[in-house]
């Protein structure tokens, strides 16, 4: 009772703060919804920064159809309840389009709100297949979905000769979805699932799971959740003497993973989204980002920048701020950004997977050939 009150009060106060930007009448308002507080605040900050950077660049070139584009950030804290509040506020602010969304669990309940309001919504990070099913036609997934990642994961297991995999998730929509899809795909490909476990988010101690993994006889571990837990799990697995392979889902692509895991992270595989370090054309962006915001561009910064660009591009192609026209323009996107091309299928998902396996070597992610 006391606890839920604490979280709620905190959440409302912050959501209120985040929405105090005031807009002039003729500007085109773009809502950014991202976790600005909570465990994934760092990723949310990256998303906001990169989208703003793209939109400022577009404004410098005259905005969309000659109108200035402004952004309004709403904090979903990666929490479904708060996401609904944040989403409703963006809708009542009268935004033309919305970009963002990092945690699938928080994005899922907002799809109906944006769908009913007919607002074009480009999802940057969240990529659970549940989002595809719940989409009312106005939402677009700019990141590859979980099933594409599961395929990449199974290919990686087979290539490394892993036969018994322990699949560990954090119980949220995103990581449990990826865990389930990967387990099914791997069993379908003749592999064996040694154990399937769920950990509690925000935990520091993974000893119970580590003990289960060790006693299950798994020859590799697949962690489908985020970097904070991933780094701790990696460290504790190695500390307990686990010798097998460790494979991480795309939520672990953060410089913080390597910092925290330290030497225990060596040789760990990651299914990476298109990060700036792996993209040949993103050098300028990386420098400029660091210069503007005084921090390194995180995993989804490049993709966030692309989505910021894409939405302005779609408004320009729609030749108006009419939301139906923008949705049609997004459907017809043929966009080449920093992170690769964005073309949508008839389900509004990406046509080509943007995952690539990388391995940690000498404290850096390097591409696996």
């Amino acid at each position, binding site marked *: 009772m*006391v*606890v839920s*009150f*604490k979280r709620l*009060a*905190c959440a409302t106060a912050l959501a209120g703060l985040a929405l105090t930007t005031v807009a002039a009448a003729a500007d085109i308002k773009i809502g950014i919804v991202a976790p600005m*507080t*909570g*465990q*994934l*605040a*760092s990723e*949310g*900050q990256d998303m906001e920064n990169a989208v703003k950077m793209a939109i400022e660049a577009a404004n410098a070139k005259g905005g969309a159809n000659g109108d200035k584009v402004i952004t309004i950030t709403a904090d979903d804290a990666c929490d479904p309840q708060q996401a609904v509040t944040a989403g409703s506020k963006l809708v009542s602010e009268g935004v033309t389009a919305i970009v963002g969304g990092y945690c699938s669990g928080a994005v899922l309940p907002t799809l109906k709100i944006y769908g009913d309001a007919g607002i074009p919504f480009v999802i940057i990070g969240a990529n659970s297949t549940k989002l595809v099913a719940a989409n009312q036609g106005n939402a677009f997934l700019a990141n590859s979905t979980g099933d594409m990642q599961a395929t990449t994961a199974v290919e990686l297991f087979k290539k490394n000769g892993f036969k018994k995999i322990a699949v560990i998730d954090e*119980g949220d929509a995103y990581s449990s979805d990826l865990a389930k899809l990967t387990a099914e795909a791997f069993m379908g490909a003749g592999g064996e699932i040694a154990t*399937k*476990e*769920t*950990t*509690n988010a*925000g*935990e*520091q*101690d993974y*000893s*119970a*799971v580590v*003990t*289960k993994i*060790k*006693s299950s006889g798994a020859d590799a571990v697949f962690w489908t959740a985020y*970097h*904070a837990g991933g*780094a*701790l799990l990696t*460290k*504790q697995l*190695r*500390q*307990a*003497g686990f010798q097998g392979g460790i494979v991480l889902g795309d939520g672990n692509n953060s410089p*913080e993973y390597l*910092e*925290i*895991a*330290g030497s225990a992270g060596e040789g760990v595989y990651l299914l990476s989204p298109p990060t700036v370090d792996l993209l040949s054309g993103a050098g300028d962006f990386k420098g400029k980002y660091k210069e503007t915001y005084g*921090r390194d561009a995180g995993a989804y910064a490049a993709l966030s920048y692309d989505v910021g660009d894409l939405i302005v591009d779609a408004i320009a192609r729609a030749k108006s701020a009419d939301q139906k026209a923008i949705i049609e323009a997004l459907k017809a996107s043929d966009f080449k950004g920093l992170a690769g091309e964005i073309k949508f299928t008839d389900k509004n998902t990406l046509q080509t997977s943007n995952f690539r396996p990388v391995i940690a070597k000498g404290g850096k992610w390097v591409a696996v050939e």
Partner: protein
Amino acid sequence: MTLDLVIQQLVNGLIVGSFYALIALGYSMVFGVIKLLNFAHGDIYMNGAFVGLVVFSFVGIWVGNGWLGVVCALLVSMLAVGLLGVVIERFAYRPMRNAPRLSILITALGASMVLNGTALALTGGKHYAFNTDLGFAGVDISTVHITYTQMVLVAASISLMAGMQAFVSRTMYGKAMRAVSIDMGASRLMGIDVDRVIALTFFMGSALAAGGGVMAGAYYGSVHFFMGFIMGLKAFTAAVIGGIGSVPGAMLGGLLLGLLEAFGSSLPFVGSEWRDVFVFGTLILFLVFKPTGILGRSVVERV
């Protein structure tokens, strides 16, 4: 369950349990003295970890990232965060001491949010690496690997707790503390400087939480602004199980809770996601059937 698994879970349970116990002690002491559930206590633990990390990075330049650095970080953090606890008591809780219980409880939530929000603003929500050179060396008991770090950690927290118990039961200040917890008004009439005793209680409780924070940071290798949240809740649970207000109760509660988690989640057909269900389910059972906990005394309400 094989013998290896039992030993492994025993080790797991003892380590987590030591952290719970250290933090539960502060909860319990403060509750004992001013009947306040100090919800900021989990955040104190988090602050301790951050102060420890700063000190560790700083002294690391001279003494390296080994044991000496960790010990320096531990001592400085305990002192600094202990003082922070005193400051919080002075400015947030003391003016509220005669206010209704609900008001001071809400003040505690406010203090928790201030600490948490400040940490978020200062750290930007980032997870900071606390990289030590302690390594994974240790002894092997059949398939169970126990590192030296783990042994030192359990030993250190047990000695801290034993020191605290000795302080409370053997020294004059400890006696004053116990007196204030029984009857604040009468203690004041007997010439005990109640404000000072309460400040001391906050200092010691916060220092222990900070010690736990530094040890957890160094052991798990990561520090972030939200780490105190679940820890605070579980330490509270440990304090209730052991008997809130009782020093040995907090230690017992912490260790029991750690073991309960470890063995509970290793039961057949029970996934590790049930761990928190065990913890908070136990809390509910205790609150319903034995709210005074294992070692707590029942309080007679005098009207």
